């Protein structure tokens, strides 16, 4: 990760030469800080249990209102367009002091959530009123987590919309991830609980939700959901086997990764300020391919073994299949996607999990690379090799390498966020679905062929 300077690491936000904090922004920051203070107070007291509604309102004003005020004032004065001014000088965005602190706090939050849930008790009580309203029971730590996650997507989604308001593609896409997070990944699963149905996420499928095709889980859903449960299982299987390949054929993996998925949704909204921190080196590309395909293989093997185990009534694992699946859920589901995936946003960029770990991304990527009409078209010879596209690609794709040769970009890892196209100052890149014939384009600058770059196998 060599690209980001650290000379500014000690400079506070206010000293950023391209960033003068206005008084309105100051107010926003103070309100946000008070909100965070409220969170700490709630954590260490039983105020949440005593005055849940009051605390909920106060905290919401702080952690939602403060950032919104800050965002509104930040983008009010700049015209619609790309203004990544000062990103590389920002202590928060360029791995400075604030960035590291943010990374540690986020990671710490995940550690508490997974391993020391009792420490969060005070805060869990604050969201009780919301939990009773939505699902009729008291909140637990996962409800708290879902609430925070959804708020992050919504608040930072507003920021993404304002920031990229010159592009309708970005506005619509951001609204889509906000919609799917709020509706499909938060409200509907809670409402299902209210009606005594199994908690089910209609926007997650195997292999990302690895257990949706596991025999134990299927029988649980069917048993507890009856007719609806059968539909849920059918939905999951249908999405994985039929809808996914078809949609990916027509639109590329973006239909899921940057329009629907909750992990992608968080990356595109809360993670957007950190998107440029992804490593662009060839070495990381190699690691990415090994890692992401290993995880996929692991999910496939695990799923297959579990089915064999269930068909042979315990022939493979005996009764210990539970342990095996728990082990996967812990290692990949919790540690990788949560602690590393989100906790490391300010250090490694916003798509660490999507890029290195997500089995769904691996499957979709494979389809995108070989069976899809999607490509990023390069506009003839217009590239000036400036590097904005590569810098702001959250997946660490060296977009410029293709663009400056006049070659289209077809990479399995591309999530189709469209930011490379948005930041390009010369209108070189466009996300398109089109005939598969000639999809790769011909490099008109067919100079030194791929000496330094690996062929993309998947």
């Amino acid at each position, binding site marked *: 990760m060599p690209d980001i300077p650290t000379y500014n690491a000690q400079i506070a936000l206010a000293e950023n030469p*391209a960033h003068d904090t206005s008084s309105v922004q100051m107010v926003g920051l103070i309100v946000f800080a008070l909100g965070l203070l409220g969170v700490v107070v709630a954590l260490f007291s039983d105020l949440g249990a005593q005055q849940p509604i009051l605390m909920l309102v106060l905290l919401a004003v702080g952690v939602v209102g403060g950032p919104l005020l800050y965002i509104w004032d930040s983008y009010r004065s700049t015209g619609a367009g790309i203004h990544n001014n000062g990103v590389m000088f920002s202590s928060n965005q360029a791995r400075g002091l604030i960035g590291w602190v943010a990374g540690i706090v986020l990671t710490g939050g995940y550690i508490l959530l997974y391993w020391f849930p009792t420490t969060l008790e005070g805060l869990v009580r604050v969201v009780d009123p919301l939990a009773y309203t939505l699902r009729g029971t008291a909140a637990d730590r996962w409800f708290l987590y879902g609430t925070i996650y959804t708020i992050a997507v919504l608040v930072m989604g507003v920021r993404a919309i304002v920031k990229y308001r010159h592009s309708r593609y970005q506005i619509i896409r951001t609204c889509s991830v906000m919609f799917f997070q709020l509706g499909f990944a938060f409200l509907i699963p809670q409402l299902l609980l209210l009606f005594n149905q199994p908690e089910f996420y209609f926007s997650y499928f195997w292999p990302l939700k690895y257990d949706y095709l596991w025999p134990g889980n299927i029988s649980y859903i069917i048993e507890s959901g009856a007719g609806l449960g059968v539909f849920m299982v059918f939905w999951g299987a249908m999405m994985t086997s039929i809808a996914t390949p078809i949609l990916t054929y027509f639109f590329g993996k973006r239909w899921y990764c940057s329009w629907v998925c909750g992990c992608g949704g968080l990356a595109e909204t809360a993670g957007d300020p950190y998107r440029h921190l992804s490593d662009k080196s060839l070495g990381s590309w190699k690691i990415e391919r090994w890692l992401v395909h290993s995880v996929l293989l692991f999910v496939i093997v695990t799923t297959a073994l579990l089915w064999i185990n269930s068909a042979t009534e315990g022939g493979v694992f005996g009764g210990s299949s539970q342990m095996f699946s728990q082990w996967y859920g812990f290692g990949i589901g919790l540690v990788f996607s949560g602690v590393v995936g989100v906790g490391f946003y300010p250090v490694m960029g916003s798509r660490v999990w999507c890029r290195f770990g997500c089995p769904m991304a691996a499957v979709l990527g494979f389809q995108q690379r070989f069976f899809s009409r999607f490509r990023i078209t390069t506009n003839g010879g217009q590239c000036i090799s400036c590097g904005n596209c590569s*810098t702001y690609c959250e997946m660490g794709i060296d977009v410029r390498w293709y663009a400056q040769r006049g070659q289209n970009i077809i990479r399995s890892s591309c999530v189709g966020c469209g930011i490379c196209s948005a930041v390009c100052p010369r209108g070189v890149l466009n996300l398109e679905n089109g005939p598969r014939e000639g999809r790769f384009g011909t490099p008109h600058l067919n100079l030194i062929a791929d000496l330094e770059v690996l062929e993309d196998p998947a």
Partner: protein
Amino acid sequence: MHLAIIGNGITGVTCARLVRKRDPDARITIVSDESDHFYSRTALMYIYMGHMTEAHTKPYADGFWEENRIDLVRDRVERIDTASKQLHLQSGKTMGYDALLIASGSTSTFFGWPGQDLGGVQGLYGLPDLAEMERWTSDVEQAVVVGGGLIGVEMAEMLRARGIHVTFLVREPTYMSYLIPAEEGRMIERQITGHGIDLRMETELKEILPDDSGRARAVVTSDGEEIPTRFVGLTTGVNPSIGFVEGSGIETSRGVLIDRYFRTNVPDVYAAGDCAEFREPLPDRKPIEQLWYTGREHGATLAYTLTGEPREYRPSVFYNSAKYFDIEYQTYGRIDPELPVGEQTLYWEHPDGNRSIRLQYSAEGEKAVVGANLMGVRHRHAVWADWISQKQGIEYVLSNLSAANFDPEFSDQGEPAVIAVYNAANGTSIQPRARKGWKRWMAKLPMRGNLEERRLVDSFAHL
């Protein structure tokens, strides 16, 4: 063969890479004084503005050069001895060559203003200028930029990005009126003033006044007004950087004089890119073209000549692009600021004043299109290169105009409105072709399979 290249800019590097590809045995050395590695000069502004670091602007990983056995020497060529084929370097070393490419680029041009050498007064061409700018602007609140070209508007944007007030002195009556028609020029002016810049059209610099420490204190304009400022950006153009060529017997005028094969008057010495001047300019083209794209095409064409397949420079249909604050600009073919006799122009501007499409076409015969200007609209390079080289008529172009659109999905397309403007003026009833046209054009784009027939590809293929 030992090929020595002076200058690691886009010209020299493109040539080096293609020579390496075509001749695995050639020895290639690039001597350059500004930076260890090739970087994108066009991205200079983004470093200052904090969009990218210097490292981000390097198009190739540092290991690339060694892997491809392209030797890099950080030094300055002081003198060329063409008789003994030796370069004399600043470090005192000498370097022999079998073939020499001069690709030394440009330097900023100043016009002998009183005070132009004061502290806080500078141009913008390379990394040293950026360091200077960092230093001189660290404590200023008010800056003056002189000279309304592309670099001028970039410098104004850079300063604005750091919250510095900018007064911008521009000689022309409308922005870049020597290159761009007035409507587009005014759109650029609206962008400039809309970003809080005090734009003074038809105003020139008279002199820069010093303070006691030898730093700029104020500028005096041609109107006699004195504007206090401690930073003055002079962006009044660039000139070939060829001082070191003097006395070598290589003929120069403004630039190093070359023929269509990039040959100078001295055998085995070639020049290309910003620093080169064609003895006989190509039709519709300037003898010196200080453009990234031109440098790239020069370097690539020359690589063929250097590897035993002499190739005349036959550039593709002209194209260029820029960005004026938030408005992207693309141009294809020829657009004249003043319409020549026998040609017509079709101009559409979005009511918001931030987008426009202009087509220039012949008034006679098939009414062939000769060029397009696009502001705030992206169009397909390949489609336009096709239309212009095939001399397609305006009505054909209009009915297929959507096929050229390259805006992101869901964008509100202006092309139907362009057709409406034409229909209203000419009493025609041209209908836009359905979106299907896009597919048709995709099939014709320079892709595998249909390479040979494509004129565009022909002109790119050697690159």
